[in-house]
């Protein structure tokens, strides 16, 4: 692994090629690691330069592990994206079906509107009472 370590600063820097890693996955991985390290990213001709700054004191071995876990997280993100892409049509079908099943008939909609109309004055009274109690408090 061609990493650059700065033990004094608790930083590790490495370069990733844009052919194999997507920018949005870099930010997602940085989010996952937000508790352990701060991530700084810059663009280079071939891809991205990533610097991870550990939030706790870290030696070279700890920095190596931090960078390694970050790289593995990136691969996980990529795999997740590929799986999503492969199953996109099935996901869409299931969501469409769920929405279709949850839709209301005109009779149900009318009933819901009637209940809302009936409940409105009661709700207003309750809100007024709560506000009055809040003022007293």
């Amino acid at each position, binding site marked *: *692994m061609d990493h650059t370590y700065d033990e004094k600063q608790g930083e590790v820097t*490495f370069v*990733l*090629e844009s*052919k*194999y*890693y997507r920018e949005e996955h870099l930010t997602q991985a940085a989010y996952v690691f937000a508790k352990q390290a701060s991530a700084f990213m810059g663009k280079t001709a071939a891809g991205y330069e990533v610097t991870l700054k550990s939030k706790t004191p870290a030696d070279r071995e700890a920095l*190596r*592990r931090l*960078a*390694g*876990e970050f*790289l*593995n997280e990136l*691969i*996980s993100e*990529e*795999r997740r994206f*590929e799986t999503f892409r*492969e199953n996109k*049509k*099935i996901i869409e*079908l*299931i969501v469409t*079906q769920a929405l*279709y*099943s949850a839709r209301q008939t005109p009779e149900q909609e009318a009933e819901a509107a009637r209940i809302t109309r009936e409940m409105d004055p009661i709700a207003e009274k309750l809100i007024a009472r709560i506000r009055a109690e809040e003022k007293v408090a």
Partner: protein
Amino acid sequence: MTPKTKSKSKKPAAAPAPDKAAVPAYSFDAKSFTLIADCDAKADSLEVIRSAAYVLTDRAYAQLSDGPQGTVRVRLQLKDGTPEALKALQTTFGDELATQRIRHQIARNNVSIREYIVEQAIHLAQQPAQGAPPPQAPAEPELTEAQRKEIERLIAEVEDEIRAMAPAKAAQDPLRISATWEETHAPKKGD
């Protein structure tokens, strides 16, 4: 014992030769316990290579980059390394690459079938909500005892008439080819 033949066709089918292009070129960095595998991007898709690397992320840190001559370089650095583990990592990665290759091939071939099955399942789940169940035929009224006896009597009458017609029929069919099994095997009255 059957004699052995020299014919080629009688020999058991030889195992297919491994595709040399699909075997990655391996190198090691023993100091950092890193396995470097240059995978042929023409033989294996990036998804296959990435999946194989992903499987090994429990024991190694994986990084993908461009390799020499259009290959994809996979760097696998052991989390806790020993020279034996590095050798085992190479074997595991090679096996996993072959497994993922087949897995992706099957997934690609069956994508339309998977989608069809899910579509059908959803379609079936949707049917009861779409409309009322089809009207069923009204149940037939049950026969009274008197009606049942009347029907039995009528059947018996018809059978008697058929039996009475039998001699005329036998003249036309002396070998009794058209006779039913019951007619030919029925116990005689004297039995």
